[in-house]
């Protein structure tokens, strides 16, 4: 936010001209829904003692606001990061100097940063507009995905419909795609991607697979058999708030964006918030932790929405929850070392799944029970204890070379092999009704 305009003298323009120019820019920026941060800087200050800290807090308290803290004054040993609008730079720096507060410039011009990001994304968007088709080999924003969903459903309305199963913490729609050839409350298969927002390859895979289902339906006899007997549900953006945040502020955000009064850290690990095994050793009670389980089982709207939907439906027979990275196919339990009753069956199905995946591009996955990773309160354990016998968790490419930042060039190959893995599980589910 631009602060009140002062009569600073910029090069060339008189104070009035400059002020007018800035006001006009501000109005236009607001009108176009884009904030402009040209010349804004982010300063890092190390306060030596409490006195200096309180000086910084004073800055924050000024009305109208002169600075915007990215990392607020907490303790003398911790750095304070604050964004200073261009118009306030001179005054704020003078204030810091006069009070002996040492600072360094972390980001010299925020707008440059934002422009670079925007250019990169515009490049991929431009391609889609000119070929008038959505690019399945790029990463997309939340808005682009939601708009694709609407187009996709409209184009394939004989097979696909969109269901809103609830709202996220920040009030975004939680959407599920339903693939069905008819019937009433048929046996169903659930697939979710993006429960951890930084795992971008999973959303991209979910989108590709959705498209694969509609395009392969006529030619793939097995798929036809599956869809003649069962419905498929795919939730692509399981954590929409977190996903939006990975685009706007922090590419490596994992959790959702829920907050509780009086607690400084934000976000709950949605894959630790499920009822089965909640609170076990494989999750954390520290809200600042990446595996924070949340205040109570199913406390998070994103989890509650799925629980309600699946429970209400009552006829799900398989569930696959997709993550990245590590290249693994896993079955329950995560919270306990105790093997599930149909352990042998799941072991063999996992083995076949990994084999089918390997056939596509030669990528090696390992398989086993989730307890190897020691996680509790997870989706797959809840699904299993709710009666879904074929419950699996996938960890997609790679094994650490790029990790979460998997290059877009790997989206299609990853999706292709993952599809064959999913198809194997669906086939088994079809052939082993219960």
């Amino acid at each position, binding site marked *: 936010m631009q602060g009140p305009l002062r009569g600073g003298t910029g090069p060339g323009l008189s104070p009035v001209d400059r002020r007018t120019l800035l006001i006009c820019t501000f109005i236009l920026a607001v009108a176009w829904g884009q904030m402009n941060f040209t010349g804004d800087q982010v300063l890092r200050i190390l306060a030596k003692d409490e006195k200096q800290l309180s000086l910084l807090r004073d800055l924050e308290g000024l009305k109208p606001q002169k600075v915007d803290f990215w990392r607020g004054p907490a303790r003398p040993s911790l750095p304070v990061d604050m964004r200073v609008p261009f118009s306030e730079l001179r005054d704020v720096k003078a204030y810091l100097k006069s009070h002996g507060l040492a600072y360094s410039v972390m980001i010299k011009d925020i707008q440059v940063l934002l422009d670079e990001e925007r250019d990169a994304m515009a490049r991929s968007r431009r391609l889609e507009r000119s070929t008038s088709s959505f690019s399945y080999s790029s990463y997309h924003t939340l808005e682009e995905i939601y708009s694709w969903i609407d187009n996709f459903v409209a184009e394939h309305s004989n097979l696909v419909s969109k269901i809103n199963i609830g709202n996220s913490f920040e009030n975004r729609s939680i959407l599920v795609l339903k693939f069905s050839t008819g019937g009433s409350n048929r046996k169903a298969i659930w697939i979710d991607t993006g429960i951890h927002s930084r795992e971008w390859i999973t959303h991209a895979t979910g989108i590709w697979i959705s498209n694969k289902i509609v395009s392969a339906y006529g030619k793939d006899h097995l798929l036809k058999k599956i869809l003649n007997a069962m419905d498929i549900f795919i939730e692509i953006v399981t954590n929409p708030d977190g996903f939006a945040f990975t685009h706007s502020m922090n590419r490596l955000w994992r959790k959702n964006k829920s907050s509780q009064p009086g607690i400084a*850290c934000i976000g709950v690990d949605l894959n630790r918030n499920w009822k089965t095994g909640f609170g076990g050793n494989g999750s954390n009670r*520290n*809200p600042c932790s990446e595996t924070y389980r949340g205040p109570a089982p199913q406390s998070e709207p994103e989890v509650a929405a799925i629980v309600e939907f699946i429970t209400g439906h009552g006829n799900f027979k398989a569930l696959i929850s997709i993550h990245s990275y590590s290249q693994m196919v896993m079955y329950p339990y995560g919270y306990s070392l105790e093997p599930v009753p149909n352990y042998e069956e799941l072991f063999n199905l996992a083995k076949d799944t990994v084999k089918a995946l390997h056939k596509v591009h030669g990528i090696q996955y390992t*398989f086993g029970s989730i307890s190897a990773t020691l996680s509790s309160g997870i989706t797959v354990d809840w699904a299993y204890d709710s009666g879904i016998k074929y419950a699996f968790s996938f960890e997609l490419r790679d094994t650490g070379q790029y*990790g979460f930042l998997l290059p877009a060039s*790997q989206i299609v190959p990853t999706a292709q092999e993952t599809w064959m893995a999913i198809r194997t599980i669906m086939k088994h589910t079809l052939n082993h009704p219960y």
Partner: protein
Amino acid sequence: MQPRRPLPPTPLLWLLLSLALPAAAVAPWDRERTDVPARPPAAGLPRGILQLAARAALHFFNFRASSPSALRVLAAVQEGRAWVDPQEGCEVNLVFSTERYNPEEEGEESLGKCSARVFFKNQKPRPAINVTCMGLTEKIKRQERDNLLYKQVKQLKNPLNVISIPDSHGHIDPSLRPLWDLAFLGSSYVMWEKTTQFLNYYLVQISRVKQLKTNDDGIDFDFTVLLHEFSTQEIIPCQIHLFWYPGKPLKVQYHCQELQSPEEASGIDEASAMAPTELSNF
């Protein structure tokens, strides 16, 4: 395969039988359980310890080799044994295959093979490592490539107008690839020192380049990386300051940021965090 060392006098509580993991497409880790007698696995011996130990050995190996163009990553664990003694620590002996981190020519897989002994003393980080590798790039080729990398870094214009490597879409500009390799080399030292039998690390991103100076003495590179910590899932920012010259041992200093407790957190949405303190010059 290294000869078995004599068992220490203190009684061992658990003994994990050796695992034969053929380099096949299917690799279940549940087979470990079927071989172990009906007791719960040792509290100090997590699943995946063999992979963890192999990676730690490679971090150490890469750091020691000090060659950013000859970095190695784990391909597959082939054999391994692990012992835990709650009084002493955890020892892992293993054989594993490696591949080049940055395969250049098509088809140049260049699989190497290493055997290692990794010892974690009393759940502490910085395991003691003995590692030998074979089938790697010959020294002359390595020197050639290091010299080329050095030249490429020298040609980069300062100040670098780059925010993060790779970017959000996993893309690394080819001109910046040498920096990434250097950062990976420096991070190898950090990741080795931080690895415990429970925690291991992956390099996610260079989140900030503070300073890059290249002169005839060598490359002076000051930057911040983000490490991904398993199994806590935390992202750990580490400021690293390294000095490198082709053929000479790498010099590294670093400072990683501690995890915030609920009281410390400022309540503002976290942007990528960066390490705070200044490092003294070499």
